[in-house]
């Protein structure tokens, strides 16, 4: 746990649909992305449903691909989404 900080959390594709909103501002003391996911899952079943299988998810910190073990210190925007399908 670190000092509570304000962070933007954004969701895309079916993660957005399961959680039911595209973005939210939260205050968290989660130290890592994994901690943040745990905190969100504890909130409501729709979060637990979206994060049920982390291997099916990707995370970006301040718009750079990252991973679930990454620290959140200094991060302003966390994005969760499924593997990308552009092209």
């Amino acid at each position, binding site marked *: 746990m670190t000092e509570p900080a304000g962070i933007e959390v954004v969701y895309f*594709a079916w993660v957005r649909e399961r959680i039911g909103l595209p973005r939210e501002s939260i205050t968290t003391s989660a130290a890592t992305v994994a901690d943040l996911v745990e905190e969100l899952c504890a909130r409501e079943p729709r979060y637990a449903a979206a994060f049920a299988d982390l291997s099916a998810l990707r995370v970006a910190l301040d*718009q750079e691909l990252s991973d679930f073990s990454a620290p959140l210190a200094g991060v302003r925007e966390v*994005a969760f*989404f*499924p593997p*990308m*399908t*552009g092209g």
Partner: protein
Amino acid sequence: MRIAVQSAPFDSAAELAGFGGAGAGAIVTFTGIVRNDSGEMQALELEHYPGMTERAMTAIAEEAVARWSLTDVLVIHRYGRFAVGEQIMMVATAARHRKAAFEAAEFLMDYLKSRAPFWKKEIGPTGENWIAAKEADEDALKRW
């Protein structure tokens, strides 16, 4: 170098006017078109991550320029709702020799597919369906 993320259609001919750069001997283009694989698709929806999309596309294009000494590069990717047959994206690469232009274009496509934040959803008569990433797409990155 030109990178564009837009919902509007693009005109390949207009985009390629003046494309090439000094010393170019080879230009390769790729254009992606909406297919109707299931035969039942009514539309394709492409969602993206504004901001990150431009960053990721720029980083991928800059890497291609550096690795293949490209004399010019162009990447356009659309988002929004598409009908079957519509142009969804294009890349163009210019280099002195054909091998570099081809390789760079394939590199761009492989990376855009798995590293640019776009997600495709098929709209059909019985509902909507997010298209899953293929393992082969991730594997394709290993050759670069």
